[in-house]
């Protein structure tokens, strides 16, 4: 190590608090980014693994229109097309009553399985009795999973699917051959096709038929043969198609989480900038002496950058470890959200992707070094000194403030231009948002000067000389206070922005729910994905419910996923109820013209996100794969819907039945007779279907509350990320104040020597830090509003296609002020205490 490096290292270790806080700030920033990435990757890996598990070696699949296909098709493929490499599959999700984990139920034909899913043969062929497996309700579980759940061969599993609970005997265990297989089959319940049909109440139907089709000419001929044997509505598709489309569902969701996770790192960058600036300002004299001794500017530059890199490396290392720990907690939140919104995924462990760690490391060290470039350049400008000079830096920043502000205005203009000029890109929108944040930070020094000057007489009148000094101090040490205020402001403004966005979103959803839940009672089977409840209600249950005394009328809804050239599409078929025209509020389209035709003419309505995603308008048409072949249905209206960001195609029940053979019902809404109490009706309904399929019967109020609960749950992770950014900002303010205190030790020594009591010094420092908090709080309000505006009208729109009503609750603003002042006040306590107790003699002796 060279002497220069040694000198650096000693300086760093002489300020353990400051360096420690910086390392912590970097560590937290990196941890948040890495943990979100790890959690996202883990969820996606878990999904892929489970998809691979059930797909096995199949290259193609034969699928139906609405999620199932007649089992006769399998016979035709085997017999008529003569394809031996084919296997019937019935699959779905279930919960086991002994654990609340979600399991994937895979129903297969053991005779056809051989070439498809090797793990089935590995365990299934050996240990168990084939006739038993095939006839009775029996299942196989992975050996480690059974062991974990304390299950043994011969035990009874109680399998719950869409409200029906069926006992199944555990007939054998599958020994995973490798770690990968172990993870892949950890959530698998393997049953015979006929057992699966019974479990899912799908007698005579298959989810799909798996095929292994060779490449090239033979394969093409084989596919042609299969296609000719298929009935209308059934199709052959590549196996990967499903995984790909499912992965696409969460793209916008992942992207937004990633962007939000970067916030903590951005705030962390302020912290590093502040620490390095402090260390440079404090060492101006020392650097000047080194320069006088013949150390070049370049050497000084590298030295400061090296110090930052060291902090970055240590902080990033810690951050990676912390990120892995944090990911374990976050992954469950993310998995929950994905389950609520998109599809079923069960994540038992996190996948530590090396690429994620590498990205995190590069990002952490890169950000740290980048944040140190300006202070490092500042260091090279230290005058080659033979005598000590003081406070030149401070006047510089005050002179610089207007220039910085000018740059800020320019940057903000660039950000705004990007927002206005780009159409769809979410990444660019976030880029623009970052520009706006940095622009606001650049405007901060000037705003601080103006506000401190303005508040000085007020504070003076309130607290005397001490107050005037405190206000003056904020300005005279602007290089320190400016950065602290900026960091705090950015963090608080982000909290305000995200908070207002969530509030606006929630408000919009509340009024939408109130609008769309018009009936008195809603019934649906329990579903694993809340927003996409496409489970089927038993015919018998429907009949009983309709006959309960007090029911005035009812209308059903059917929710299926159908294929279309635009990818899998959620198709919702509704019976027109008395208030259907109020339930669906049109963004585009004429209700008077649409509703009278609903049911008689064949057309669809699409939800706002669907229209946005696929760039469709009234007058266009949607092509759907039906049991009557591919059909193009015209779009007559675009309606508001906040239930699914993937979008929904809505049609009438009669149109649906014209094109599809499916007669299932996913949900049913009831109107009570005027003389009937709704709660009593619900109780009667529950009584009427007791012992049958377990369906959820609830009032519109209860459904609304549940929906909002889920809504709030999907934003939990956002709230966690917001909080973490504020924590980093708090550390930033603390470190800035500590730096300030250290730097002004001498000044405080003089104050103490001239008769200021420790208490007065403490009061002075606290007053000053609270003032900084107040300034940051006030500045964060307009910035927070701008962020909220961009989040609501640009980013949400681009990510999900929703129109939201921006609404700012006055409390949010008050809370922001409070948060800023409280953070600064708390962060100021320790430095204030330190300054108050510092001995004047000691402080004065230091050079």
């Amino acid at each position, binding site marked *: 190590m060279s*002497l220069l490096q040694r000198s650096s290292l000693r300086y760093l270790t002489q300020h353990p608090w400051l360096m420690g806080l910086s390392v912590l700030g970097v560590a937290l920033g990196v941890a948040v980014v890495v943990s979100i990435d790890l959690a996202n990757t883990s969820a996606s890996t878990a999904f892929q693994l489970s998809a691979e598990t059930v797909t096995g070696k199949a290259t193609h699949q034969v699928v139906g229109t609405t999620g199932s296909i007649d089992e006769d098709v399998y016979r035709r493929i085997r017999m008529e097309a003569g394809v031996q490499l084919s296997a019937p599959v019935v699959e779905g999700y279930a919960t086991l009553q002994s654990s609340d984990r979600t399991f994937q139920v895979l129903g297969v034909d053991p005779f056809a399985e051989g070439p498809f899913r090797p793990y089935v043969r590995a365990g299934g062929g050996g240990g168990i009795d084939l006739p038993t497996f095939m006839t009775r309700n029996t299942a196989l579980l992975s050996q480690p999973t059974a062991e974990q759940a304390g299950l043994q061969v011969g035990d009874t599993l109680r399998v719950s699917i869409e409200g029906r609970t069926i006992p199944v005997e555990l007939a054998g265990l599958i020994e995973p051959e490798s770690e990968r297989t172990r993870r892949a089959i950890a959530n698998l319940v393997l049953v015979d096709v006929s057992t699966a049909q019974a479990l899912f109440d799908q007698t005579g139907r298959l989810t799909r038929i798996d095929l292994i089709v060779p490449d090239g000419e033979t394969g093409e001929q084989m596919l042609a043969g299969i296609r000719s044997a298929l009935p209308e509505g059934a199709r052959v598709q590549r196996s990967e198609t499903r995984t790909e489309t499912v992965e696409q569902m969460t793209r916008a969701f992942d992207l937004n989480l990633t962007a939000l996770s970067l916030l903590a790192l951005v705030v962390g960058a302020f912290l590093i900038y502040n620490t390095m600036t402090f260390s440079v300002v404090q060492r101006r004299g020392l650097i000047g002496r080194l320069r006088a*001794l013949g150390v070049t500017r370049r050497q000084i530059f590298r030295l400061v950058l090296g110090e930052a890199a060291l902090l970055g490396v240590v902080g990033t290392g810690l951050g990676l470890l912390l990120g892995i720990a944090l990911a374990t907690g976050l992954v469950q939140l993310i998995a929950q959200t994905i389950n609520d919104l998109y599809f079923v995924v069960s994540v038992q462990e996190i996948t530590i992707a090396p690429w994620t760690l590498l990205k995190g490391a590069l990002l952490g060290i890169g950000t740290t070094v980048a944040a140190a470039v300006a202070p490092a350049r500042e260091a090279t400008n230290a005058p080659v000194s033979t005598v000590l000079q003081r406070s030149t830096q401070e006047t510089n920043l005050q002179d610089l403030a207007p220039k910085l502000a000018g740059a800020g205005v320019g940057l903000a203009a660039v950000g705004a231009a990007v927002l206005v000029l780009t159409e769809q890109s979410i990444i660019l929108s976030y880029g623009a948002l970052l520009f706006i944040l940095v622009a606001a930070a650049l405007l901060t020094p000037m705003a601080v000067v103006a506000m401190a000057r303005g508040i000085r007489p007020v504070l003076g009148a309130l607290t005397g000389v001490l107050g005037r000094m405190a206000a003056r101090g904020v300005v005279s040490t602007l290089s320190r206070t400016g950065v602290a205020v900026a960091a705090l402001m950015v963090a608080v403004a982000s909290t305000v922005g995200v908070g207002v966005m969530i509030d606006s979103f929630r408000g919009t959803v509340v009024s939408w729910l109130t609008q769309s839940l018009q009936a008195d009672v809603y019934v649906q089977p329990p579903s694993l994905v809340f927003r996409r409840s496409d489970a089927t209600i038993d015919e018998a249950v429907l009949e009983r419910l309709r006959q309960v005394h007090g029911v005035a009328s009812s209308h059903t809804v059917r929710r299926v996923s159908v294929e279309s050239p635009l990818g899998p599409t959620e198709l919702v078929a509704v019976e027109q109820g008395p208030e259907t025209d109020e339930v669906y509020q049109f963004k585009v389209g004429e209700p008077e013209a649409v509703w009278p035709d609903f049911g008689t003419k064949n057309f669809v309505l699409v939800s706002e996100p669907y229209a946005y995603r696929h760039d469709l308008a009234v007058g266009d048409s949607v092509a759907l794969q039906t049991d009557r072949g591919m059909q193009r249905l015209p779009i007559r209206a675009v309606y508001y819907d906040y239930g699914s960001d993937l979008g929904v195609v809505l049609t009438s029940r009669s149109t649906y039945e014209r094109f599809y053979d499916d007669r299932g019902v996913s949900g049913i809404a009831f109107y009570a007779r005027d003389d009937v109490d709704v709660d009593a009706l619900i109780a009667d309904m529950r009584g009427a279907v007791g012992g049958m399929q377990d369906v959820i019967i609830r009032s519109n109020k209860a459904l609304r509350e549940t929906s909002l609960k889920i809504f709030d749950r999907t934003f939990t992770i956002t709230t966690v990320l917001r909080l973490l950014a504020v924590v980093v900002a708090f550390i930033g303010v603390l470190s800035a104040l500590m730096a300030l205190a250290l730097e002004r030790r001498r000044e405080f020594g003089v104050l103490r020597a001239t008769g200021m009591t420790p208490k007065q010094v403490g009061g002075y420092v606290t007053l000053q830090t609270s003032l900084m908090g107040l300034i940051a709080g006030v500045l964060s309000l307009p910035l927070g509003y701008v962020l909220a505006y961009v989040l609501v009208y640009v980013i949400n729109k681009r990510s999900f296609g929703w129109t939201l009503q921006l609404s700012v609750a006055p409390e949010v603003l008050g809370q922001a002020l409070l948060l800023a002042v409280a953070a600064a006040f708390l962060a100021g306590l320790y430095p204030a205490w330190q300054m108050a107790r510092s001995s004047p003699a000691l402080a004065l002796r230091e050079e």
Partner: protein
Amino acid sequence: MTEPAFGNGSPAVSSILRLRGLTKTYREGESDRAVLDDLEATIDEGEFVVLMGRSGSGKSTLLNLVSGIDLPTSGTVEIGETDLTTLSETERTLFRRTHIGFIFQSFNLISTLTVAENILLPLELSGIRSGQAEEQALSILERVGLGDRGDSFPDRLSGGEQQRVAVARALAADPLLILADEPTGNLDYETGRQVLTILTDLVTDLGKTLLVATHDRMLLDRCDRVVTLHGGTLHDGAPDFLESSSA
């Protein structure tokens, strides 16, 4: 009085420092004020020159120009074969690093390096290998009487001791020219004398060229030449004011 009184006027082969037409002006409000005004000087190799002058007369300014820390408004600063005014900032730094030892009024030790490391620093910067450098540093530390303080940090040392370290540091890298700017300015009389004795002894022993700005008359007996900075130019001999003010 207007004659260039410093040096013999013709550039001798043995001259190590040549200042030609050296002018330094500072902007003061609306107008420029010349601190150094067309100053001429030559110093021969091995010469020991004392620079006197009132506070504010421009001594520090002159020394900073000679060391390349600062650039003149016009004129040239030639050290050996090199004209510092034609060099870039970095080139001047590299030149200073290897050819000039500087002793400051305010010691200017590096607080984060030990005494021994402070002395090693110029050696390391000039790329002298560490084993040899350490020996060199230790021997010079012995010479200034601080052989046992090598591992202490500067803030543990008294002012006189710190300035002795600075002397050792200035000499460590075997520079062409040693500059000292009021090396006793921050020390009491006795201590100042001790430091000056050590400095002049060392310089004389090593045969180095030394230019020292000071008010201390003790050096008048020991130096080769005395010059006084007044009105922006140099004059031979000690100034008259010194006699009256030091009485």
